[in-house]
């Protein structure tokens, strides 16, 4: 009951004109970045984070800026489907699975049904996950209070292990990417020994460490921009969509046939989203696979099955809420986007972690309330303005690229007032581009930068406690199982290799 009244108060705060306005603005921005191929939620959130300081200076607290960014995150999950369906190019990696059936359906002249199904499934996925989130979060936060240094380190280990064990990218490259992130995370002043480390060329700018925002904007602003310019030399044809009110109404009525994919996506998406390092993309792919598996007509999948659109779209929205859960309750981001949100919370002066729920109820509940509001706003705007988004999708990237470039430069400077950071950001962006060309996954590096500064001191503090004895990670009741699970996940690829070898031998 306490939760319901807290939530009701939160929804009221989220409905205040400023917050509602920011939610609407955020959703529109999110729909846009989600729909534009080459941009996803993380790009929007990273590039616009510095501008939330402006919002904060007008509204005071951290609630309104966070509502804005969270709305972008949600909007992007909706927007991704638009280009997946009409262009056949996923607007964001989270909408890859939506192309499988969305594109064929659009080519068969039923693009309006695909678009409406995607929007409604997203809405259901978002709502279901919000309810699960509201029920779980306070409980998890109260358990997390008992977490000491070894427990937090074990969780960090688990986060890295999921990348290696479940990441799906090339494993040596994933490990290399994590290592780059960890090395960059050690730059600066070491709190345990009190000594400066890796101050390259004695530049004082390195003494405060490499700021996460500099990296995030470098990788997801400049790096992504160069990448898109380099890769999008194709021309694509856009499917015509008949978006008359009558057509949309018919499509809404048809949505009930997609209940199977919607419910699987909503539930599965959330739980995959909770896993660190998993997030919305694997969540939507897995939901698509499971729905196909249990469908009565698996043969229709890939040819325009309505369940094949509903499942990934419900899942990516649900997973994005799921990824918020460890971020809000444990202070551990599950995806690059939540990592940026976490960095924002720190910059706005909040202390993320289990105490957030006890110490900052004025922040937490309006934010959760805004999840519900943004979700409603997103589905309405999405349905009402489908033609506008289709028109925007025709915008050539040559217009968008300079905008991203300028926003990245101004945003980085505004955040820290330091030209050193701006140059570093550009260098990071160029480096990220080359790493992508060489097929290195960047998300592990970005998360390692966030998790490294948490994991390293926790490891050393734990070992100080135990006088250097590693058994502290195994003997404590909460840390033990987490550490063992992490080790199993790290070894998982090895098991697969051995299994394959044995198969080949026999």
């Amino acid at each position, binding site marked *: 009951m306490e939760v319901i009244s807290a939530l009701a108060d939160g929804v009221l705060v989220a409905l205040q004109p400023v917050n509602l306005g920011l939610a609407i603005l955020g959703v529109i921005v999110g729909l846009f970045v989600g729909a534009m191929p080459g941009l996803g939620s993380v790009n929007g959130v990273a590039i616009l984070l510095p501008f939330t300081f402006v919002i904060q200076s007008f509204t005071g607290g951290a609630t309104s800026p966070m509502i804005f960014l969270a709305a972008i995150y949600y909007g992007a999950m909706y927007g991704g489907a638009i280009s997946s369906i009409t262009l056949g190019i996923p607007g964001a990696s989270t909408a890859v699975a939506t192309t499988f059936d969305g594109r064929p359906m659009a080519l068969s002249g039923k693009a309006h049904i695909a678009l409406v199904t995607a929007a409604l499934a997203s809405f259901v996925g978002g709502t279901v996950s919000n309810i699960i989130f509201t029920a779980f979060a306070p409980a998890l936060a109260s358990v997390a*209070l008992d977490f000491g240094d070894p427990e937090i380190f074990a969780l960090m280990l688990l986060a890295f292990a999921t990348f290696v064990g479940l990441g799906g990218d090339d494993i040596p490259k994933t490990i290399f990417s994590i290592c780059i992130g960890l090395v960059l995370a050690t730059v600066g002043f070491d709190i345990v020994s009190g000594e400066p480390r890796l101050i390259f060329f004695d530049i004082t700018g390195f003494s405060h460490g490499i700021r996460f925002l500099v990296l995030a904007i470098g990788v997801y602003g400049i790096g992504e921009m160069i990448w898109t310019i380099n890769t999008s030399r194709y021309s694509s044809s856009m499917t015509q969509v008949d978006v008359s009110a009558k057509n949309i109404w018919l499509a809404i009525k048809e949505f009930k046939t997609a209940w199977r994919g919607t419910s699987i996506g909503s539930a599965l998406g959330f739980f995959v989203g909770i896993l660190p390092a998993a997030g919305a993309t694997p969540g939507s792919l897995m939901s698509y696979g499971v729905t196909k598996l249990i469908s009565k007509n698996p043969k229709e999948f890939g040819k325009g099955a309505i369940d094949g659109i509903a499942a990934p779209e419900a899942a990516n929205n649900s997973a994005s809420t799921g990824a918020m859960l460890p971020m809000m309750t444990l202070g551990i981001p599950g995806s690059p986007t939540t990592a940026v949100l976490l960095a924002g919370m720190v910059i706005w002066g909040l202390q993320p972690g289990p105490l957030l729920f006890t110490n900052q109820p004025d922040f937490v509940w309006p934010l959760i309330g805004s999840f519900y509001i943004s979700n409603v706003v997103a589905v309405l705007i999405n349905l009402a303005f489908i033609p506008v988004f289709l028109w925007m999708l025709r915008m050539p990237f040559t217009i968008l690229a300079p905008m991203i470039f300028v926003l990245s430069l101004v945003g980085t400077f505004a955040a820290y*007032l330091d030209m050193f950071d701006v140059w570093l950001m550009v260098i990071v962006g160029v480096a990220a581009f080359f790493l992508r060309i060489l097929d290195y996954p960047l998300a592990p590096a970005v998360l390692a930068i966030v998790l490294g500064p948490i994991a390293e001191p926790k490891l050393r503090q734990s070992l100080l406690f135990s006088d250097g004895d590693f058994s502290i990670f195994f003997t404590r009741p909460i840390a033990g199982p987490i550490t063992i699970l992490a080790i199993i996940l790290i070894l998982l690829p090895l098991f697969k290799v051995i299994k394959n070898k044995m198969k080949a031998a026999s």
Partner: protein
Amino acid sequence: MITRRTMIGLVAATMLASTSFTGIAHAFEPNKPVDFIIMAGKGGGADKMARLMQSIIEKNKLSTRPLVPINKSGGSGAEALIAAKGARDPDHTIMVTLNSFFTTPLRQPGLKIDAMKFAPIGRMAEDTFLLWVHKDSGITTFEQYLEKAKKDGSKWVMGGTGKNSEDNIITDYLNNNYGLSMKYIPYKGGGAVAKQVAGKQLNSSVNNPSEALGFYESGDMVPLVAFTDERLPMFPDVPTLKEKGGDFSYFMQRAVVGAPGMSDEALAYYNGLFKKVYDSAEWQDYKKKKSLMGDFMSGKDLVSYWGTQVDRHRKILKASGAIK
């Protein structure tokens, strides 16, 4: 907050560059936004205090030009000290300092920074330190604490804010003078340390009152002894270490300094400005609430205070082996 300041600052700077003129003969007034360097990261105690000063100046319109807060937390203050030392316009560069103002130049002679060269604008307060334990430890007096900590030896864990920090100095003092061998584990900030004590992950801490206040009010954390000369008004029942026979008190300076090379006219202006901040009702209220001590101090008095602090820290750091 910072962005709007910046935006205003940038706009104001560009617009005024063409219209304003420097070199007014008599009293100094800033003719552009003033860089307000904070020797700590965002969100910590030092940062909140600096931003309070800024908001008092803004609210009471004490300055015609805005103060632009810039956080430089790197290298335990080294980054801030270097930035202030190399300031292009010393008359428009001021900095909020902590005790790392004394210790960092001592520990890193390579920086070639002399604390005494900075312009003495004003000491706004001295923060205090208390010894804290969790209420479930059952310890209520300093004597019980010594007994338990002695018995536990290196199993007794004290947390603090970094190696060779203020907390480390106090912990060393207790270990050396009371035959203890407490283990010292550094954390990122005072807030994190207090949280670990409240969560019973650490046995004790020497937090500032402002850092432990939340857990003190909720009853989780109990203060045992204050490292001050007199009892703190906020904790009238907590004895000082001096009452318990120890000859030791320790404070954290919260002072505003000007960049080396600041002109006398500018120094006089900032002296007046921060005296007004100090006298404001908001600042006095904050001092009381956060249990801060120390009167306003500026000019020669502040320089001689720094002199004694530098000497004292040199001795302390030599004794602990941090410097030769």
